[in-house]
């Protein structure tokens, strides 16, 4: 759910890339030396000490973790919390979503809900948003998913409300104290990289199934964006402003309430916006534990291998995302305008709003007794679209299948397998040393310690072989992502029509739940590691393409002009001027690509990628296996942190420093995967 918001320039004021100092032997040569040494030792030792663990086997450590999980029963406290949440959500569901038998419809029928939502759209933003909201709500019903859509809306909004109640104080604390910021960052990093499937069972044990678990999981996943972004906004208020107001002798509290929070308002709303999208991206996972919402029909269509039936509710989730995103964005813009005393005549607006209440009240009243205004009439649009999509998919698969199989085999035999032999079939101590040395070469001394810690952790968790397979897949997928990103990114930057045509596709790739395209991916590529890579590509490539496009687009016209004046061809212009000058963006795009791909590991387990993703799903199956699932989840987290730290160190070396990174996400065009609402 990364970027429904339009993407803005990544690093407008970033310093031009600095060429790394080239003293003595260049870095890539050192890299080659390490790899050559690795291969040398591998020839004599391959296949020994690889720590392979069978699909269903587990070690003593995993058993102990399972026992730990089983020892956590439910308690009166969690039961109380669960029941309260359930009752709270139930009230709203019966109000707008589900019927209370024997009454055949919810308390407020669809017509009333549409009217209220449209009115809210106008109240918080403008009539365009009101129209968008109204049309979206009607679509939910017209395509046949009114109840599930309203359920999802209720669960999402309640989760967001709780997230704000918990997250905002944390954000303020983080904004005020650097030390708190360090600890909180650590916690939210963990919350965001840990695959939700890992703690799903654990939350079920504590809170039971259904609404409470759905909300707690959504909460855990939606909390980080608001804490991180709002905290950053509060901390980032310009020091001169603070000094100026401090000189008037204000207290810390006054400074916070009167200066820091108001000045960070737009950043805080951005955090809220990202929190809403992250919450929405949990729709499908929540359905794994019987949470209500649009994830339900997606999952049940998946068990029937019915692509069309999963596509329609999947697209409605995207529509809800667009609606909520545009509405919060417009609301924040309006609040800025109003705060500066602009905007339309307030008296006129108040009149319009009050006048609007009359038809709203009428619609609510009408929808309480007229059956067709209460229960959405069946129009059959959703079924029609599902049928067409199924037929389209079948014919597309028939045509493409020979090609895609050949491509899968080429990548698998050409890249995946040889690299996997080196990474995973080496003795563990050899891969360990090799990766450590490579991190030193790529990221310098700064990357060495985090890599050492993460690798030791992975070794300790007893899933070394599976982790190496995942690392290998992640690297191959990232290479493919970067090829796509450079080709399309440069093309988009050089031709605005291409940019215009591709952006909506990129947005769709990032927002559509992965579960929806699993069926066509399986039909095209079979169950294999490559299918998992394809799922990763669909999710990761859009972000990388956008980053490269923005980076290349930022290269100053002057530099390009200078190149042209000395007569360079279009090709030379790209290779010699645009790409080198956008080096910072390229490094960032690689980092993001790696982490996005890693976020899809668990999904990969569902389509035959084996390894850690499989282990995580296995952990869901029984209390005995939970420990192995937990270990796999933690291994994924460690891999993510390791990759991120190496890439960050490399980025700093390449001149795309911390500043550019923070700036990029402050502008909100995209978020690092570690902050994203990937549908994992």
């Amino acid at each position: 759910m990364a970027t429904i918001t339009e993407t803005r320039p990544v690093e407008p004021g970033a310093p031009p890339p600095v060429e790394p100092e080239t003293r003595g032997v260049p870095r890539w040569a050192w890299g080659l030396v390490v790899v050559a040494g690795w291969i040398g030792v591998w020839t004599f030792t391959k296949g020994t000490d690889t720590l392979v663990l069978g699909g269903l086997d587990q070690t003593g450590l995993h058993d102990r973790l399972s026992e730990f999980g089983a020892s956590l029963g439910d308690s009166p406290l969690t039961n109380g919390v669960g029941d309260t949440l359930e009752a709270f959500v139930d009230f709203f569901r019966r109000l707008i979503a589900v019927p209370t038998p024997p009454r055949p419809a919810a308390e407020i029928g669809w017509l009333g809900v549409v009217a209220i939502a449209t009115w809210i759209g106008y109240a918080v933003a403008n009539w365009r948003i009101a129209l968008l909201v109204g049309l979206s709500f009607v679509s939910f019903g017209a395509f046949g998913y009114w109840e599930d859509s309203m359920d999802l809306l209720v669960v999402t909004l309640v989760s967001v409300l709780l997230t704000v109640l918990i997250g905002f104080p944390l954000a303020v604390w983080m904004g005020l104290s650097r030390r708190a910021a360090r600890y909180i960052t650590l916690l939210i990093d963990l919350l965001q990289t840990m695959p939700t499937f890992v703690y799903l069972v654990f939350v079920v044990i504590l809170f039971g199934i259904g609404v409470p678990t759905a909300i707690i999981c959504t909460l855990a996943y939606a909390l980080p964006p608001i804490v991180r972004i709002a905290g950053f906004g509060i901390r980032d208020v310009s020091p001169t402003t603070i000094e100026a107001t401090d000189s008037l002798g204000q207290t810390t509290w006054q400074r916070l309430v009167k200066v820091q929070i108001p000045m960070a308002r737009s950043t805080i709303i951005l955090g809220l916006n990202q929190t809403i999208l992250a919450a929405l991206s949990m729709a499908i996972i929540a359905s794994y534990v019987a949470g209500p919402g649009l994830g339900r029909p997606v999952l049940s269509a998946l068990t029937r291998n019915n692509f069309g039936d999963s596509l329609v509710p999947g697209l409605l989730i995207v529509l809800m995302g667009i609606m909520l995103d545009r509405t919060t964005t417009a609301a924040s813009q309006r609040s800025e305008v109003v705060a500066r005393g602009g905007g339309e005549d307030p008296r006129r607006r108040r009149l319009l709003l009050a006048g609007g209440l009359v038809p709203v009240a009428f619609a609510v009243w009408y929808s309480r007794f007229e059956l067709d205004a209460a229960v959405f009439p069946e129009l059959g649009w959703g079924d029609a679209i599902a049928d067409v999509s199924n037929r389209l998919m079948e014919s597309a698969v028939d045509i493409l299948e020979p090609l895609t199989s050949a491509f899968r085999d080429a990548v698998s035999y050409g890249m995946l397998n040889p690299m996997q032999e080196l990474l995973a079939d080496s003795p563990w101590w050899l891969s360990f040393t090799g990766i450590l040395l490579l991190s030193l070469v790529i990221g310098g001394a700064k990357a060495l310690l985090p890599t050492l810690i993460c690798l030791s952790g992975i070794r300790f968790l007893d899933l070394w072989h599976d982790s190496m397979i995942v690392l290998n897949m992640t690297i191959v997928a990232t290479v493919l992502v970067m090829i796509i990103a450079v080709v399309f990114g440069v093309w988009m930057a050089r031709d605005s029509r291409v940019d215009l045509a591709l952006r909506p596709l990129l947005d769709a790739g990032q927002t559509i739940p992965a579960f929806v395209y699993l069926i066509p991916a399986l039909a095209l590529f079979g169950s294999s590691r490559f299918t998992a890579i394809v799922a990763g590509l669909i999710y990761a490539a859009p972000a990388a393409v956008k980053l490269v496009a923005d980076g290349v687009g930022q290269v100053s016209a002057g530099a390009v002009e200078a190149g042209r004046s000395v007569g360079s061809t279009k090709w030379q212009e790209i290779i010699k001027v645009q790409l080198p000058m956008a080096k910072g963006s390229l490094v960032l795009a690689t980092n993001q690509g790696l982490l996005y791909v890693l976020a899809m590991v668990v999904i990969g387990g569902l389509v035959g990628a084996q390894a850690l993703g499989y282990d995580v799903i296995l952990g869901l199956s029984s209390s005995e296996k939970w420990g192995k699932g937990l270990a796999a989840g933690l291994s994924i987290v460690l891999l993510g942190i390791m990759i991120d730290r190496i890439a960050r160190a490399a980025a700093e070396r390449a001149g795309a420093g911390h500043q550019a990174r923070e700036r990029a996400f402050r502008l909100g065009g995209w978020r690092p995967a570690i902050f994203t609402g990937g549908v994992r």
Partner: protein
Amino acid sequence: MRQVKKKGVRIGALAAAALFALSACGGGSVEDATETNEEQAEAAGGDCGEFNILVHPWVGYTADAYVVGEVAEEQGCTVNYVELKEGGPSYEALASGDGDVILEEWSHAEELAAGIAAGEVVDVGSPGNVGIIGWYVPGWLAEEHPDILDYKNLNNYAAEFKTSESGDLGQFLGSDPTYTQYDEAIVKNLGLDFKVVFSGGETATVEAFKKAQENKEWLIGYFWEPQYVHAEVPMKRVALPPYEEGCDADKAEVACDYAETQLKKVARTAFIESGTPAATLVQNFSWTNEDQNLVAKYITSDGMSPEDAAAQWIADNPDKVEAWLG
């Protein structure tokens, strides 16, 4: 600016008019519908209350659940379908009262035993279905190489089963991690030149068998009955050393075929003791693999909704349904 606003107002008015038109095609009043529902509930014998059926994610189970659910609704129960993964989460749901019954339990002996020991759940016998798990090949392969149906000949063909995922060995397609399976042990203990590659889920396994039959690809894997795809894709079972009592006791030493499983119904103790029409129905519910496959076929191949598919079967089988009502 004013012009734009007028346009907005006009669009808004138009949209509102269209909505009212849509909602006023004369579908009757909410009150009438409420009364009809009430009368139905009374006619069926009154108080059944809420009935929460746990639904596991495979089509055969969906067939069980909706047939039982539709009958229960006729009895005046308010049926909720609680969709959940089998195993741990389901037993948590039974313990907490969020779910009332598992209609098709294949394994999870540990969870079941623990639940019974704690007095939370009871085993209410079989839904009549027999679960068959085994090694299957697509029909075309069994036709062209009939000797493949004996495990002793599998090694002759191992090279044909090689894929990008299986290295130098033949690929054996394992299934959803949450299913009962010990193929890795069987392969090892029978000395077969195969590597177990887990498809990851039912969706992936079904796609693989469909594709293999269509394109005449070599495939061998874990599959089971009752499963709706048998109606679409012919499959043959490969004979392993026959199952004998206890040959699967040590999961690491298994070298025999899977046992035929009498599937179980597992219910919440308090639910059964309540004696409601739903509890009686659950205790009496029993049908055959053919019945289940038929309803599953309605849902998948014929594209019917689970409710319609169940209603169709109920209408066609009044005697069987009558016997469940006790």
